[in-house]
């Protein structure tokens, strides 16, 4: 069996406990306005072009079999077949293919390369995109990792069928569960989708006693006011002890440029220091361990 991923990040320090290796699976059911990993949204392979790296050598133009590149960085994506030839020849790594398949063995070798550094709670995190869209593959891999004594974490947006969670539950040490809003309208505006299933799945994980860390992005102009609702909801879940509050930042626009996509809307911003600290304190006051 193979998995479909777009990146493997070594020495990931903020994706769960300890030093971890994070695997980014490709494809996601949500379309968060602030998505920081746009290359993980579609299942389709994509071509990225990073202007800052290009040395304008023109090699890619000559190599493209369908003439999709008219000048460096000018890619006619409607005719590009994602054959990857330009990527192979680009000397500067200015072109990159987003999306590749890995076998279980390949991935296992890759994610256990730094096993010695996983002491102290570190391990492997599956993220994305939404890794649980490939739940069967994930379950197999997680099982294998657990067998090898490696700590596992699943970072999920929650919008998958419950059976996906059932499949990975026995082999997952921690779920990093993203929560964006409780009000369905707000959720829809932020992510393009309804949140009933997301909340149900979170409740399910709570009820079966999973180890949970809830990750809340705070984006002014979109979901900032939702924090109270989220706090109230999370208080009702006895297994949720830790929340991670992520302040919005705009350091990801280059990825949209690289994919040839238009930039995300400009009406998003980070909460002020005060707003952020007030929210943090409110969660702390309610007994949550707050990570930032």
């Amino acid at each position, binding site marked *: 069996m193979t998995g479909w991923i777009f990146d493997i990040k070594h020495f990931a320090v*903020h994706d769960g406990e300890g*030093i971890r290796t994070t695997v980014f699976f490709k494809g996601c059911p949500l379309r968060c306005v602030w998505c920081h990993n746009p290359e993980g949204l579609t299942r389709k392979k994509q071509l990225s072009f990073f202007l800052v790296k290009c040395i304008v050598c023109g090699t890619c133009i000559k190599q493209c079999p369908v003439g999709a590149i008219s000048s460096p960085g000018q890619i006619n994506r409607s005719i590009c077949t994602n054959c990857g030839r330009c990527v192979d020849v680009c*000397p500067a790594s200015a072109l990159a293919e987003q999306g590749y398949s890995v076998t279980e063995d390949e991935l296992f070798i890759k994610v256990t390369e730094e096993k010695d550094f996983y002491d102290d709670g570190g391990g492997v995190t599956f993220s994305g995109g939404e890794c649980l869209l490939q739940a069967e593959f994930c379950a197999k891999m997680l099982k294998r990792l657990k067998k090898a004594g490696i700590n596992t974490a699943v970072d999920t947006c929650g919008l998958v069928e419950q059976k996906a969670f059932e499949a990975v539950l026995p082999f997952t040490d921690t779920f990093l569960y993203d929560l964006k809003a409780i009000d369905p309208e707000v959720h829809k505006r932020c992510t393009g989708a309804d949140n009933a299933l997301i909340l149900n799945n979170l409740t399910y994980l709570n009820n079966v006693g999973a180890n949970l860390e809830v990750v809340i992005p705070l984006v002014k102009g979109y979901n900032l006011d939702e924090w109270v609702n989220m706090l109230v909801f999370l208080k009702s879940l006895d297994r949720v002890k830790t929340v991670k509050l992520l302040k919005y930042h705009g350091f990801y626009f280059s990825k949209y440029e690289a994919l040839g996509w238009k930039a995300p809307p400009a009406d998003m911003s980070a909460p002020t220091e005060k707003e952020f600290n007030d929210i943090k304190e409110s969660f702390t006051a309610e007994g949550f361990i707050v990570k930032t």
Partner: protein
Amino acid sequence: MKPFQQTSKLPLSFFSVAGEKTHDELISRARTAGQNFQGEKVTVQYSALVSEVMENCSVLIAKGDPFISMTDGAGVLSEFSAERRKKLELSDEESDAYKTRLRKGQRACAFQGHEDFGHTCPDFERILSVGISGIVKEAESLLKEQKSVEKKEFYQSVIRVWKSARSLALRMAQAGEKENDENLSVAAENLRFLADNPPKTFMQALQLIALYYELQQNIEDTPVRSLGKLDRLLYPYYCHDMEKSNKKEEDIEEEFSYFLRHIDSYKACANIPFALCETRKALPCENALTLILLRVTLRCRFSNIKIHLNYRADISDEVMLAAGDAIRSGSNSLVFINSDITRRALEKIGIQREDAEDFNIVGCYEPCSREEIPCSCAGRLNFLKAVELAVNGGKDLLTGDSYATDTPDCEAITSFDELMDIVRMQLRAFAEGCIESAKEREKVQIYLHASPLLSATYRTSFYGGKDVYADYGAKYNNTSVCGMGIASAVDSLYAIKELIFNRKRMSLSDFVDILRKNWEGEEALRIYIKNRLPKYGNNVRKVDEIAENLVEYTANLINGKPNARGGVFRFALFSVDTRFVLGERTAASADGRLCGEPLSKNAGASSCADKSGLAAHMLSVLSYDHTCFPDGMVLDATLHSSTVSGEDGLKALNTAVITYLKKGGFALHINVLDAELLRKAQKNPELYSNLQVRLCGWNVLFSSLSRRDQDEFIAQAEAAQ
């Protein structure tokens, strides 16, 4: 003594007192003294000169400083050494073809071998326990027993300089007494006491260390490159003060802060290091002072002070966390040293266990066992030059010279294995070049330098009546060779393996032509190699095994080989700033490096080639056995502060450090970057292409961000300062 405050960290302003002579007069007096002893043994000459300077130099003091140790005596002896060295320089017009080849190899920076009188750690324990007058007394009684002229001369020399040291201490005390300054009078009182007694209090011990530092480092011109393990050295005096004088920890912290400020004022070349934590297995790793001294040093952040933190498995979490926390907030003055690996490396070259395990690091990363003169930077070996010669028929691409015999032309090389054989052939010639060049110099060493100060602190030398330099009098008289540019060499060899032998993209001779022309017209190929081929430092086995092969092979050529002083050679893997000089003389290389660019740094990856995170970098460096570096090695890795922010970040940093050391890493130096560096990275992305920054929950390469994103990041980093 006045309380040490934030303002006390401001630089001290020194002024000169208690000297009747100008610096020029001092030099001319010393010159006369030197002439009076012309024809005498270098030990005698040296002691006369040193004592002349001690007796006549001016004392430099600063208001508010509770220590006095500086003089204007620096530079007098170095003039004499330079003159003497020049006289003994071997001429270029050697008739001997072999020696001519050695000279050429040295000039081309393929290999070098010199003398090194600059890396020492005196036995401070002995100095503190016996004191100045104690050494004089011991030497006087040993002198009476001597029959041989040489030994008599040795003890007379020791007595001469240590007596002068005593009178200098008294002149310093006088200078302090004359000023109406609360702190200076503390120094004066301590110096008066130290003239005739070993120290009793914490402040007296610190004062004696500072004074000795000046005597050996500046007046005698035998650089002191470690103040020793200060927690252990100072512990008895700390206990004395806590018990007898009812002092509190805060008092000790204040006193040590003052000491650091005083020592920092020396602004010595390449910092003044000291060590913390016991290295002898049978004794506890830490004592009550360890954490105090660590915290004070890290809090004060004096730029000229460096700590060697000796790691053992039983080191406390508090010490490791304090160190980690300081590192991630930008303190890059702390180096982790693995006690166990160091001991094993020293034992491998024949140093007895009890001496090996009681080592100090002198300078940057070089171990010096108890009773050892390591000459830790005597030789240099350029790994990348060996590759350059191997692909060019044994000829230097810049000079056309050859340093190994019978190297085949590159057309004749048909496989990568053959190429590796030829690289090893060059390394063999280079190692021999280092050894023979250093030995030549060692033979004249007895005419070059003596250290009656240092020799009195080494037991073997002192009780044996021999100078550590002029008589090769230490228990271990060793010489070291540093291998440099390992990553540059490995990346070059891998690029050749991949492009020439695997993909057969062009012939080796065509490729060498490209290098000869410094990549002219081949920029795309150069960038391709730099960006697209796997590099050392990323935990890629097929690359790292080349490093393993070269490093272990070369270490065997050097380690344990006899030198000309009855000791052996020791191998190291670090390059510090010498990589710039060596780089200037090294042609363009197959890793995409341009002619003249610096070689890779220390044992780490080529500049910015470590793109897979800290753990991968560590694993590459761990692919070879670190006990083959009795002269030390280091991985210095760069991280951005965002990577190690928060509780998670600190924990991860510590886990990484401990894992590296547990897996056999010799030494580790971690730099955490700030906004200033990000600005530099934005200006020169090619120099910082491996710089990672943390974005929300993950890290990205700073260079891959758009200008706008980079600007925002810099703004945030500034805000976070």
